[in-house]
């Protein structure tokens, strides 16, 4: 019998194909080359947030970061704001990534040191961060980003957006290597699978989780820079709804909500599926309502499917003679 995780990838791939077929049925414009570039335009931002969410979930706890979209909004504002007062843009970007890590560290403090349930802690910081983003700007965007910087997210190379090549793909590959090839990756899975066993075999579980919250924040910071480059402005509501969408993507991609199971490839496929659906429905001029409904059903459906797979895994484990 095949590895259920690999089966999951086939399943996701099938879903992606189905989404593409649906797209081409819905709209004659879908099967054009330009659609691909348009579609991939959306992928890196949601992808980075989804990967961040996946990492936080993987290490167990159970871990979740509801503030991730709000971190993105805040960092975007910080980058544009710093540039506005004369900081060189590249330096502002570096500071932005650092700020993302710092905001993640606040979450990490609450969750990993004070042991507040992650759901509550990040709900509270979600309020605080997103409120701060709105309050500091009075709700209006910060513009004035030069054209050359816009190239990062608007430029194309071989029809594929530049930020796919330069940011998203490298980060995804790095994370994949980290999770599957390095000791840190093994530790992350171990912490998510059985916290106690991992601790007893010498994994510093909570320190690892602390680091992952910070890293997730930093990834959100990178995503923020991409939004700044794309819109050539920082919108205080850039990350609105992203926290839920990132959870959807991670879970749809096969990440177990209590940790221990999940792969980069699954999350990337899930991002592609969600984006394809959104773009297809958009092209077909179908109301936003159906997009919401589709995402909601995908979310619930994917967890149900996931549970079915896990039940089968347990049944298999039981059949093995002790």
């Amino acid at each position, binding site marked *: 019998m095949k590895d259920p995780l690999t089966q999951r990838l086939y399943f996701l791939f099938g879903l992606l194909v189905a989404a593409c077929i649906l797209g081409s049925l819905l709209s004659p414009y879908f099967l054009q080359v330009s659609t691909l570039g348009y579609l991939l335009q959306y992928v890196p931002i949601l992808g980075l947030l989804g990967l961040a969410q996946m990492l936080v979930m993987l290490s167990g706890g159970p871990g*979740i970061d509801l503030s991730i979209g709000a971190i993105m909004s805040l960092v975007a504002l910080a980058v544009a704001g710093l540039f506005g007062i004369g900081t060189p843009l590249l330096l502002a970007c570096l500071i932005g990534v650092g700020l993302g890590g710092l905001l993640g560290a606040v979450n990490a403090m*609450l969750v990993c040191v*004070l*042991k*507040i*349930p992650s*759901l*509550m*802690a990040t*709900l*509270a*910081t*979600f*309020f*605080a*961060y*997103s*409120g*701060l983003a*709105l*309050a500091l700007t*009075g*709700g209006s965007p910060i513009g004035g980003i030069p054209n050359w910087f816009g190239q990062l997210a608007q430029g194309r190379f071989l029809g594929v957006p530049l930020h796919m090549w330069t940011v998203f793909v490298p980060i995804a590959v790095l994370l994949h290597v980290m999770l599957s090839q390095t000791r840190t990756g093994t530790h992350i899975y171990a912490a998510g699978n059985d916290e106690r066993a991992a601790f007893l075999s010498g994994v510093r579980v909570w320190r690892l989780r602390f680091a992952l919250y910070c890293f997730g924040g930093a990834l959100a910071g990178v995503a923020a820079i991409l939004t700044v480059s794309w819109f050539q402005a920082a919108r205080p509501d850039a990350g609105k709804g992203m926290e*839920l969408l990132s*959870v*959807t993507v991670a*879970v749809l991609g096969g990440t177990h*909500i*209590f940790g221990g199971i999940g792969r980069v490839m699954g999350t990337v496929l899930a991002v592609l599926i969600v984006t394809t659906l959104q773009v297809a429905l958009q092209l077909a001029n179908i*109301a*936003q*309502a*159906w*997009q*919401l*409904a589709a*995402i*909601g*059903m995908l*979310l*619930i459906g994917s*967890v*149900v499917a996931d*549970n079915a797979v896990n039940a089968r895994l347990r049944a298999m484990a039981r059949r093995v003679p002790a």
Partner: protein
Amino acid sequence: MALIVLTIIFASRSEFFLSERNMTTILRNSVDLSVICAGMTIVIILGGIDVSVGGILAVVAVLIGRAYQMEAPDWLVIIVGLSAGAALGAINGTIITKTRVPPIVATLGTMYIFMAILFLVIGGVWISGLPNTLSFLVIGSFLGLPVGLYVIGVIYLVSWLLLRLTPWGQRVVAIGCDEGSARLVGIPVDRTKIQAYALLGIFAGIAAVLYVARMRNVEVNIGTNIAMEAIAATILGGANIRGGKGSLIGALMGVLFIKMTQNGLVLIGVSSLWETVVIGGLLVIVLILDAFETRRTA
């Protein structure tokens, strides 16, 4: 305690804050949130959570709006609203218990679906100019006190009785404390959970009726924040997010706290955009205090 401090701060900054009219305004604005919080407390005591209450409120409000447009009488509207709320809540409960999807994910999913229903029914246009026959529930007064106060009182009394004096309430607490043990001693865990979510649905339905009665219109972004506010208020009121512990009176205090903050900030001239920052900050502080408390007792 914190409530008193807050009152003193705001009262010292704006003489208008303590006026009777302002107090009535705060009360009026908190009726729908209070009602939802009663249900949310029960669900959180049960060890669950529901982030889709805003969606339920929205769907019910839109149904009510449509029912009014078809010139349905008040009593029919109320029945439709409450039963729709109960049905949506029961859907949440069923998904959570039968498919074993964690409550946060399941209700996140249904939130999307409920919002979709809202958009489909409302079609991007406000439903407005609804009759004011039910407005007395919110703005009227009886024996010198606002009717809203009685509504809150009845809801909380019923919830308190349910939770503390009936076997059902004891089952809820037992499941929240230790679901496995509760199952082993023969408590119908799934049924109780579905009932609790349905009860929260009914309360969201009542909140929708009150909302429509107060605003007399249904807009597109109705109910977007109310789930977060309800969870925040319940936690501020001392409920434990891990289940088993929670206080209805505390939740009500939490609601008043949030609404007074919102109102007071405006009165002392701080932009209303800061209110989420303040609520979030307060929530962080309460959680930290709670964490220290747990550490000391453990």
